[in-house]
């Protein structure tokens, strides 16, 4: 084994060989190695707690069972030796959360991967998509997210927010590339499940078939658990199916991805509400050993205004969207007013329009720039003809009998309350007005419906009405009961629910195998580094993100067809190739420092390296001053910068982008390689006092020295002049 690398990293590499194809022969040895590997990886990542080392030592003792094969017992002795010899370093990793040699960060996640709540290895799958390997890309995504197609259409994409390319021009369109790859892989029947581990005989019950529950079920099934999902609705997907309209997320997409999860043996029991249709006692008796509560946040806040309860045409948006999703396509009214400013309000308004409403107005009590809805959603709603009434506070629903005539409102202005810099809408005196309406839809937020949850007597509820968990492992105060999704966060994002479900699955596995939980949420894992794609600096700088083709407006106003039609294949490949590969370049800036401060050349204009103070970047500028000396590459810890020689040229590449390419020259006397003209000139300039350059011949330093020696000797008379 290599003694130079960090012992923690060394242990990880050794354990990885033990569980590989040429590893330990016995399943028990493999199992122990897998468990230790998880714990050592957490030590390397800085997410381990105090219980990790004692747990590893207990597991190592299991190797020594006399009934185990000799190879397994030998492996145990090797790991025990590593622990004994380097205990201080292991403890240091746990306490400081830092690897002094940086070996434990070699496969450090990129900012986009770190930003993804599910921790998807984005640069790897973008590199695969750029090469046309869509099915392999989906395989990479599904290591961390079982619903890539769904997320490719509706994710809130925190990854794009942290995309380093955005510091140069625009973020990579990560979301749409994922949808493209999923669609292609599914269409080509190449969207497949990984092989699950053999059944371990243990059963876990997941309550709720939304993104959090499905994610938890998927990863548990892959780990060999028998999983049943209890779902109150007659359809899978939770809010994906009954909250997000079909023009954003077709039902077939959800059904196909859920079918993949069911193909792993996950059973979904529809129309079954816990506490009403089945009790926890019954489930306990069936042998379920752990539970994951992922019931979502399906209850809506009401407006609390006069007349709200008096008319049947006042709806809660979540109920309205659910009814439409389950097949009720009646138009809510000719004139619809939606109250709220979030994505649910936009969805309710655009759905009303598609059902035949003549005029739809969104009434929001603040200003446009304070709307929490996605900018793209707001723009698309406006394109379709949705109107907005900002600074509008609803006051009463007016009408006669069962018919609504108007929503009475008050104009507001934003004012700071005493002791706060937060602007709040305050009614303007005399600002009363009415908006004509025959249907009013409230979309001012949702909360968790805790009906039926009293069976879980040991769980705590937060003051926000959500289930209280430790977010590092999603375990509630009741042992064996975990929770994920909106039930924990309140109404939040799909990718957050998926990430929470995955964390819960991991934690349930650890709970049932009695290994300690992590102290902090685990750092996303990278399994390998895809080779980079070569392209010129000019091409890397001038590639532009494609424009999304949209369904025509007439259809958008009348049907539930998907609005965003997806990129063309050529655009997808090109957009994926725009990625900077931040999984390889960690933006430490050493290359810039060395080129500028040590070499005095200053050829690298990489302003994007700094998160807080980004400057201008232009890969094309490097060629103006670079001498291909290779000092930057020699000091790049992660081999992001490389010097190579190809077709008689010396090239400098940054993650595949050719920053410079110069013709290699050779000594005219001995044929030794000299490097480029620029490099030779630079070296000659530095060494001219010691080895005077010849202007007539191109010579290497050795030949120059030899010539100079001969010349000096001849001048001094030591050698005869020829």
């Amino acid at each position, binding site marked *: 084994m290599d003694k130079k690398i960090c012992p923690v990293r060394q242990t990880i590499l050794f354990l990885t060989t033990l569980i590989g194809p040429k590893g330990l022969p016995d399943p028990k040895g493999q199992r122990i190695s897998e468990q230790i590997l998880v714990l050592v990886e957490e030590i390397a990542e800085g997410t381990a707690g105090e219980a990790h080392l004692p747990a590893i030592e207990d597991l190592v003792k299991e190797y020594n069972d006399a009934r185990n094969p000799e190879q397994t017992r030998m492996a145990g002795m090797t790991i025990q030796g590593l622990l004994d010899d380097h205990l201080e370093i292991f403890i240091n990793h746990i306490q400081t959360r830092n690897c002094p040699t940086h070996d434990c960060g070699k496969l450090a996640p990129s900012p986009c991967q770190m930003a993804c709540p599910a921790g998807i290895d984005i640069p790897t799958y973008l590199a695969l998509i750029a090469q046309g390997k869509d099915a392999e890309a989906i395989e990479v995504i599904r290591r961390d997210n079982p619903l890539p197609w769904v997320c490719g259409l509706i994710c809130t994409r925190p990854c794009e927010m942290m995309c380093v390319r955005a510091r140069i021009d625009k973020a990579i369109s990560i979301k749409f590339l994922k949808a493209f790859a999923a669609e292609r892989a599914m269409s080509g029947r190449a969207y497949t499940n990984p092989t699950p581990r053999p059944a371990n005989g243990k059963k876990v019950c997941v309550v709720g078939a939304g993104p959090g529950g499905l994610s938890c079920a998927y990863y548990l099934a892959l780990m060999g658990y028998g999983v049943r999902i209890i779902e109150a609705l007659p359809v899978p997907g939770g809010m994906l199916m009954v909250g997000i309209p079909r023009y954003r997320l077709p039902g077939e997409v959800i059904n196909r991805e859920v079918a993949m999860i069911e193909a792993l043996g996950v059973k979904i029991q529809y129309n079954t509400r816990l506490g009403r249709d089945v009790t926890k006692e019954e489930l306990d008796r069936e042998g379920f050993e752990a539970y994951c509560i992922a019931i979502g946040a399906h209850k809506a806040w009401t407006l609390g205004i006069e007349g709200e309860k008096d008319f049947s045409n006042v709806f809660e948006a979540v109920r309205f969207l659910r009814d439409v999703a389950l097949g009720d396509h009646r138009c809510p009214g000719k004139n619809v007013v939606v109250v709220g400013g979030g994505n649910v309000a936009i969805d309710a308004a655009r759905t009303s329009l598609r059902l035949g409403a003549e005029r739809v107005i969104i009434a929001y009590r603040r200003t446009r720039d304070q709307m929490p809805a996605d900018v793209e959603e707001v723009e698309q709603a406006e394109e379709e003809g949705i109107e907005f009434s900002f600074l509008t506070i609803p006051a009463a629903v007016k009408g006669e009998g069962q018919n609504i005539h108007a929503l009475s409102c008050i104009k507001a202005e934003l004012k700071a309350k005493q002791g706060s810099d937060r602007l709040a809408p305050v009614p303007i005196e005399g600002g009363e007005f009415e908006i004509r309406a025959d249907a009013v839809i409230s979309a001012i937020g949702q909360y968790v419906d805790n009906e039926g949850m009293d069976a879980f007597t040991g769980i705590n509820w937060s003051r926000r009405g959500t289930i209280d968990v430790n977010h590092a492992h999603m375990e509630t105060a009741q042992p064996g009961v975990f929770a994920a999704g909106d039930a924990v966060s309140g109404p939040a994002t799909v990718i957050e629910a998926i990430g929470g479900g995955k964390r819960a699955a991991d934690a349930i596995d650890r709970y049932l195998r009695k290994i300690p939980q992590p*102290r*902090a949420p685990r750092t996303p894992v990278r399994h390998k580094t895809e080779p980079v794609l070569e392209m010129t600096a000019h091409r890397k700088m001038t590639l532009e993100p494609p424009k999304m083709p949209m369904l025509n407006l007439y259809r958008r106003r009348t049907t539930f067809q998907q609005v965003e039609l997806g990129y063309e294949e050529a655009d997808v490949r090109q957009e994926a190739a725009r990625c900077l590969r931040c999984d390889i370049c960690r933006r430490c800036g050493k290359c810039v420092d060395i080129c500028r401060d040590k070499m005095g050349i200053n050829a690298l204009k990489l302003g994007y390296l700094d998160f807080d103070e980004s400057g201008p970047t232009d890969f094309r500028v490097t060629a103006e001053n670079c001498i291909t000396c290779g000092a930057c590459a020699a000091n790049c810890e992660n081999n992001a910068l490389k010097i190579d020689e190809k077709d008689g040229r010396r090239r400098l590449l940054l993650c595949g982008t050719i920053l410079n390419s110069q013709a290699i020259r050779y000594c005219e006397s001995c044929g030794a390689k000299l490097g480029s003209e620029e490099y030779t000139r630079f070296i000659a300039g530095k060494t001219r006092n010691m080895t005077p350059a010849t202007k007539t011949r191109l010579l290497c330093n050795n030949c120059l020295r030899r010539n100079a020696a001969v010349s000096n000797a001849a001048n001094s008379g030591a050698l005869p002049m020829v």
Partner: protein
Amino acid sequence: MTFQRGDKIEIFQASTDDAWEDYMNDFIGCHGFIVDPDTSVNDPDALVEVSLEGKGTHRLPQDCMRRLGEQV
């Protein structure tokens, strides 16, 4: 302060909110962006989702963060 999607923020102090967990102390001093501004509409008490440089995406109370002025 109302946080908007894309606001650049700093975690400048530990929160006094119940939702603040021990491991979140590691985030103090980190910079990042607001990813999902509110679980309910413009509620100062709501938890907001932030992506922090080198620390990942987390949902945190608003009293631990302040805006740094930029928006993406």
